[in-house]
């Protein structure tokens, strides 16, 4: 379905709501094409091809809001959804904090976000690439036991219209591959992982992904047990990005307004290292889910979340509802239907941590006794205002001694304040990898507190 058709649908639904008596109305029409080939134990075991279309209707009647999401575009379903949204609004109490749907704003469409070939990729293409990844990984060593992973291709598109005149649209194609390699030597397993997130299948280098995952895997067998404690740490981009996805809650307006954000208690303070510069910019092509507008059709603003280590009120990201509560303008951070999210509250999915000049080799050379972390796993927030996170290392954790990686170590549990961890940055990599929600370099930090060891 074309973007223009989606746009017509959204406008039509808005007009319908208008006609039925809504004070304000907004309609978002979206489509999601998700084709994914998944493999494990060195063969394809799941393989799906799905198409989903949906329409969200939001109507306002004297500050009473009705909200409906349906998965159909036929006229009867749309009419019924509009009527139901109005019915919900009629029976709802007023939301005095609601100010208005966003006023229309001009935006510049982004070029090069959609590749037709990627969006309509054949299952044989994904299957053959899965097979190739399996072959490359097994070719790394004869003790590679199993290869797992997935290759996803597809597209997302949405158009949003509102009764104030907003009329915006965006689309992207998506290609993502992840490979996990399991090796085994004398009963001891080693795991390795690598992934790539792109908008074009041309950017997916299957051989390189499989090779990197296999390399980590074969080097991870027969790990030693490292005693918990504070260690210098080198965090690979995958680990940095996952930790930032939790740190980013501090920049979300709902957390800020509720008083649970660490930013609230550190306004104007340098909470991170002075070389730590983090932004969220939905139009930065280095990030994955690029879009000129957010899910409400508001142009995406680049927000300096952390500038020279300092956070302040300008670090906070808003949608129209939460900005209205403070009499501010939306920063264009309403959830985007690209990944089928409809709030509540803003989303940060385009973070970029500025790279510097260090190579990973230099970081290792500068480490006396530390840990190289390839990935974090199952990270959760233990204390929001202090940004204490817990989680584990995974798929390649190594001991560094006197400037060299010497041994693989068992997965470690960390529990630490990531305000402290990222205040203690010693080196920032010149590499910059695009992960799903953030594009980041490798970081070397002066300490990460490990509080436990996994048994296997």
């Amino acid at each position: 379905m074309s973007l223009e058709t989606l746009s017509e649908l959204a406008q039509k639904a808005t007009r319908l709501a208008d006609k039925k008596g809504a004070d304000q109305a907004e309609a978002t029409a979206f489509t999601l094409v998700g084709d994914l080939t998944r493999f494990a134990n060195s063969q394809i075991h799941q393989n799906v091809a799905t198409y989903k279309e949906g329409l969200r209707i939001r109507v306002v009647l004297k500050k009473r809001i009705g909200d409906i999401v349906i998965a159909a575009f036929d006229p009867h379903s749309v009419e019924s959804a509009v009527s139901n949204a109005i019915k919900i609004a009629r029976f709802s109490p007023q939301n005095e904090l609601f100010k208005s749907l966003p006023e229309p704003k001009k935006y510049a469409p982004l070029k090069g976000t959609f590749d037709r070939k990627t969006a309509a990729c054949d299952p044989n293409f994904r299957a053959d690439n899965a097979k190739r990844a399996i072959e490359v990984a097994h070719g790394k060593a004869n003790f590679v036991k199993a290869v797992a992973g997935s290759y996803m291709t597809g597209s997302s598109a949405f158009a949003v219209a509102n009764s104030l005149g907003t009329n915006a649209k965006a689309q992207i194609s998506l290609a993502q591959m992840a490979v996990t390699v399991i090796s085994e030597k004398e009963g001891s397993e080693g795991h390795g992982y690598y992934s790539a997130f792109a908008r074009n299948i041309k950017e997916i280098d299957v051989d390189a992904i499989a090779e990197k995952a296999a390399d980590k895997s074969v080097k991870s067998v027969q790990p030693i047990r490292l005693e918990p404690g504070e260690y210098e740490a080198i965090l690979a981009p995958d680990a940095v990005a996952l930790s930032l996805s939790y740190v980013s809650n501090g920049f979300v307006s709902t957390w800020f307004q509720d008083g649970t954000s660490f930013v609230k208690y550190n306004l104007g303070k340098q909470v991170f290292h002075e070389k730590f510069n983090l932004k969220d910019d939905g139009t930065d092509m280095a990030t994955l889910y690029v879009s000129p507008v957010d899910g409400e059709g508001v142009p995406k603003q680049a927000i300096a979340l952390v500038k020279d280590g300092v956070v302040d009120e300008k670090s906070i990201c808003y949608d129209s509802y939460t900005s209205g509560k403070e009499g501010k303008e939306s920063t264009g951070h309403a959830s985007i239907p690209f990944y089928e999210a409809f709030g509540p509250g803003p989303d940060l999915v385009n973070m970029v941590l500025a790279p510097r000049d260090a190579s990973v080799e230099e970081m290792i050379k500068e480490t006396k006794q530390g840990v190289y972390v390839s990935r974090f796993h199952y990270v959760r927030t233990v204390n929001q205002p202090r940004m204490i996170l817990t989680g584990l290392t995974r798929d390649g954790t190594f001991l560094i001694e006197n400037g060299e990686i010497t041994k693989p170590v068992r997965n470690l549990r960390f529990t630490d304040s990531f305000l402290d961890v990222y205040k203690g940055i010693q080196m920032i990599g010149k590499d910059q990898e695009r992960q799903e929600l953030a594009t980041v370099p490798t970081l070397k930090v002066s300490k990460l507190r490990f509080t436990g060891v996994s048994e296997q």
Partner: protein
Amino acid sequence: MSKDFARVALRTVQKLGASYADVRYVRIETENLHVKKGVPEEIRKGTLAGIGVRVIANGAWGLAGTTILKRASVVDTAKKAYKVALASARAKKIDVKLSAAPAKKAKYSTSFGKDPFKVSLEEKLEALKTAERTAAAESKQLIKTSSSFFRAHRERKLFLSSEGAEIDQTIVWCGGGVSATAIRNGDVQIRSYPASFRGNFNTAGYEFFESLDLGGHASETAREATQLLSAEKCPSTTTTLIIAGDQLALQVHESCGHPTELDRALGTEADYAGTSFLTPDKLGTFRYGSPKVNISADATAPGGLGTFGYDDEGVPARNVPLIKEGIFVNYQSSRETAALLNLPKGSSGGMRADSPLAMPIVRMTNINLLPGDWKAEELIRDTHDGVLMLTNKSWSIDDKRLNFQFGTEAAWLIRNGSKEKMIKQATYTGITPQFWGSCDAVSNDDWHMHGTPTCGKGVPGQVMYVGHGVSTARFRDVRVGIA
């Protein structure tokens, strides 16, 4: 909903040469209500209807799904499923085999009294507003955010298979909760009732939500949040730990539910959630916990959020012991994984998908810790020194489900058989078999079903609703106070 579309899809793939196929035609309705700080923050209804066609062709799986419910689209989707299966076969090592399952023709519905979708919005919002305002009123100075939640879900699905199964099933669940956040000088403390993360949910009608009596518990919930501000921090020590049901439910979920999933144990989730320390060589012999520990996967448990009549392969709901007197005796499985291990009773009936467009995967049903022979109060009276922890706040576990760490909203220091004082920032950590091996008592008078509607698994990610029947239990020599 008519079976015609499903039959059309089945005929299409059978004609093409599929050796097995099933079709799920599903309609899901949802309602989410959230009142926060005196205003209706979220009033949202949703509907998703679609069809998913799962096929085995040339010994490999393919699935295609669509939300376009027109005959031509259904035929195209069925053809695509077949094509995807053929593509899968380009990288297969062994052919998919399914364990035997009866091809049932049946109609089933979870039981409910008042249809939660038919109760007026005004009534539900009034109940939420009352609870939220009551929580807020506890302390205008300290309670900075108060929220109340209601959620309802109705799923009707038709399941037809090439083996002759025709099942028409309806699942209805609902529930909710209330929470209060107290803040003073940057110290943020939250309390929730009857559970954190939006409350508790059962397969039941609106009467279940009413029985929670959010309004009646809101004051106490908020009061405890304010009391936590003045509480001491949980000490860092190794001690006796008593865990209440609203935390133990998640402990069971993470450290027993997931590692007993056979797909994980066989490596097919290795790329995302991970594998399992409970490898097949341990089945029937491995000591998972103390003899006090009995855990089952029971899809027949009344009210459980993981209760249904048939799973998404048409296998009838079963009650399967997983841990018997501490010994690991069974997996949760599917027809394919059961065949791989030649499990004599076949699938445990745990294949579930979160939408018609998703591939069914091995999922928890209701993973229940069976009641022991203690009263909950006796557990405290019998404990000289220890900590009682309540209501989950954070959770994390490694990719083999061994090393875990949980945090709770509230905790009490226990001295000489009584609750001495409330403590905050409580966390505990352990290694799964050692931890369950240290369980020396399970209560029986406070056993009930806890619903977890947000269990994530699979690629692409799926979110499933599962249940946990648990009570209070006691564990010795547990490390607490990590953060």
